[in-house]
């Protein structure tokens, strides 16, 4: 199924934007203005709702003319492109969005043709609407395709913590090493999942390497 790669779902949605000469500013501009003030960090709607690895929203004004001898043509509608790389099944993901961030969904998609009158509060109508705008992905690539968002955030936390632990326990005797490791592993287990969308803990150690 081209929309999936392993356990990751590649969702592509094109929602036609309302073309209304009387609207000031135009609906596409209202979407852009709303998106421009939306957080991309821990308080992002997609960090609050479960299951989004990466997502983008784009107002597509028109198709692009590449020059002669191809034909110049134009779209009759502008489209809101929603591209999401998310965990699990589509219905579960969309239901999670509708339950967690209905206000944001309504603020964005209420400028699109056919959006349910009651908005995301009508969860079934919202899911049906999003599916009616969905395009099937022809080819989908994911570098890591078998890990959920919480699992990935946990792995990143362990990676950082393990590096600090290894650096701090060089040359320790076996008894100290084992005792401290058991305590360290137990502490890590009790920590809540790191927040999605955050830049992670601030670290002053600069190790260089391939990320620099």
């Amino acid at each position, binding site marked *: 199924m081209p929309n999936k790669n392993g356990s990751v779902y590649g969702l592509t949605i094109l929602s036609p934007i309302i073309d209304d000469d009387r609207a000031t500013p135009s609906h596409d501009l209202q979407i852009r203005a709303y998106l421009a003030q939306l957080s991309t960090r821990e308080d992002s709607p997609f960090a609050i709702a479960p299951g989004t690895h990466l*997502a*983008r929203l784009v107002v597509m004004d028109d198709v692009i003319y590449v020059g002669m001898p191809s034909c110049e043509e134009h779209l009759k509608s502008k*489209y809101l492109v929603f591209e999401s790389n998310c965990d699990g099944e589509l219905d579960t993901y969309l239901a999670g969005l509708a339950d967690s961030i209905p206000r944001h969904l309504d603020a964005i998609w209420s400028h699109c043709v056919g959006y349910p009158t009651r908005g995301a509060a009508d969860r079934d109508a919202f899911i049906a609407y999003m599916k009616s705008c969905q*395009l099937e*992905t022809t080819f989908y690539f994911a570098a890591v395709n078998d890990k959920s968002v919480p699992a990935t955030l946990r792995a990143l936390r362990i*990676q950082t913590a393990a590096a600090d632990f290894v650096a701090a326990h060089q040359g320790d005797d*076996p008894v100290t090493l084992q005792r401290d490791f058991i305590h360290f592993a137990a502490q890590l287990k009790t920590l809540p999942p790191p927040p999605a969308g955050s830049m992670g803990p601030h670290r002053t150690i600069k190790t260089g390497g391939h990320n620099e």
Partner: protein
Amino acid sequence: MGIVTSRKASNNPTVPQSAPVLHYKESPAIGVGVVSIDHGLWDNSLTALPGSPNSQQFVSRFEVRGLEPVCHSCLSLRGPMSNINGKVYALNAITPMKPWKTWILRAVFFALGHVKPLQNDLINLSFIEFARWVIVPRRGFPCLGKGQLPEELKYDYLLFFSNFNRTWNQYIDAFSAVLSKGLNLVWRWSEKFPGSVPVTLFKEYIARVQFDTDYYYTAYPHASANDLKSAHIVQSSFDSLSAIATQSSPEEFAAAYLQFVLQVQAHLGETGEAPAVG
């Protein structure tokens, strides 16, 4: 109405190289900024927007409405650029294809999806987190009625969305150098595609068919694709060591810990903010 890019404009010998005067004006009614250009032409030296809240926000695509060009990407003056979030760059591109050619491309993608060794180069380009191609048939744009007119297009369209690390130039360079045959196989069916080598024309083509992102979110902005792979390796080894930590003697644990360090030592690189790129 036309869409042009600064790269294209700067390569045009007919374009005067004198720097036009930019004016930035914020519209309180809609909370966005509009750029006007006094004499309407520009070149690559215009990489900053004087007087704007963030001088890094100047971008290359303009829609010319009469004599008043509107800079689309200035509509999204947030903190970071909307094409970039942390270590990830969002690339969107759309190219027209003659409808009969899309069936060939579908066959190419089918082969790519089912013959895993064909994906090796894509996997080895280890700075791509997610990428997708979507073929939109000319009558395949969603039409929901309710006043929306159906599209009447001659071409099918190929949409490409990529989430990659590092810079646009590094990405396109690497694509061209490592995946040139694969890219040609995918994009040669698109109108006016010049081939992925030499890279100059390829970059011009991608710049022409690219459109900007308005909002971009990632759950882990501080991590690159390699960071993610490394983190999962560390986490797997860490969980294995944790499982035996309480059941082994100190000497057995010390030996297992040494093995753990040997396994993960190449995967403990620091994550964090991406270095600034000029």
